[in-house]
């Protein structure tokens, strides 16, 4: 079962809209304040990446139910330039020391599952899940 909603990312204001959507869903699902803030931060990072590097894209939030567990799924999809060196962007210190924020390793840490598919010249699709414990 999944319930879905999404936000197009075109301007910086859309980052805030995506955050708001994610926080609402997280709250509704019963996540506590800290987890709400973490989920929102992850969404913020992903939306910012789209805004900064792909120009436009979409953040989708889904409610998950699996084996009696509830969770939230963030999908960040764009048709931007893609990432040529995944190993590098997933490396600690690569993005943070450059001041770009938590970066993708940060998103991975904030959530429980993290998957990335990217093709250079075609775009990037990132899926991150957090389960309610």
């Amino acid at each position, binding site marked *: 079962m999944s319930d879905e909603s999404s936000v197009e990312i075109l301007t910086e204001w859309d980052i*805030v809209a995506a*955050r*708001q959507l994610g926080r609402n869903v997280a709250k509704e699902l019963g996540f506590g304040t800290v987890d709400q803030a973490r989920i*929102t931060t992850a969404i*913020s990072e992903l939306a910012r990446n789209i805004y900064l590097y792909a120009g436009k894209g979409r953040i989708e939030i889904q409610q998950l139910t699996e084996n009696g567990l509830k969770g939230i799924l963030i999908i960040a999809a764009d048709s931007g330039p893609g990432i040529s060196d*995944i190993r590098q962007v997933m490396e600690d*210190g690569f993005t943070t*020391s450059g*001041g770009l924020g938590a970066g993708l390793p940060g998103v991975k840490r904030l959530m429980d599952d993290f998957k990335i598919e990217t093709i250079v010249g075609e775009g990037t699709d990132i899926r991150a899940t957090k389960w309610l414990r």
Partner: protein
Amino acid sequence: MIHEIENQYKEILNEYMKKQTEQNLYVGQNFSRQLILENISPEEVISMHKGAIQELYDELPDVVWHSFDFLIEMMINYGLALQERQSLLKQQEELKVEMDLAANVQETLLKTKLPLLEGLDIGLLSIPARKMNGDYIYFVSEHDGYAGVAVADVIGKGLPAALCMSMIKFGMDSLSSSQALPKDVLSIINRIVEKSVDDSMFVSMFYGNYDAKKARLTYGSAGHEPAILYRAKDNEFMELNAKGLLLGVSPAAVYEEHAVDLEKGDLVIMMTDGVTEGRNEEGFIEREVIYELIERKKEEAAQVIVQYVYDELERMQNAQFQDDFTLVIYKKV
């Protein structure tokens, strides 16, 4: 500077206190990034926070201020842990520079010259999984119609492997005869490795010697991935097995030696286990998959075949090679 940051903090907090919107939280969180970049520690954040709240709501009871003081004390150790992160990042950066330089030295040190032989087309590729390559190809040739090739894999990775390899290189250098027999080459290198390297390090090696006049490859193996022979006439693949212990296990190890005569279109495929032990999401990539890849390109130049096999295996594994990848193809033309 600190004063300016405090003012900014107060302003951002004040906006949030007036209206608890997502927008105001977004601004706050972006600001927290800047604070981290400016090395503002968490105890300083709490202290700024307390100061700002005091200015905005000085009527709050004392318990609120005490509670913040307690938090400041709690955060001191967190601040220290963060400073440690800074110095670890710096160390990591320095080490990266050193590793790059070392990889560079290794490359120059271990470079080998492709032999030019009548009737033989050679393709080769060696790609490390990490910074330093633990696989090694070395050619011994003297323009006398013979060419030796060693394909080696050090068990273990990184620096220790790199050091061990430089030893093999100089060992091979000291042989300096392209007509040396595989079983003798393997014995000599075995004794060098056994003598010089501690017990935890082993090397597997395939040694082949090609006699251009006879179009004959004589070969031996020290516990190495078997080479593959592709017979163009029969359109068949077969393994070239030869018994022998890994180098460095026992100084008395002896090595088998066999020979095959090559015919036009035949391929000898020499490699390390990084080629055959790739994995995709479903598990190990079957040996047959590699045969199929080679067959598709068998009419092409040896270097084209080698590159094609690498590209396809890389695609199958999502560019995530777990081990160093080394592939050498001899094509009889």
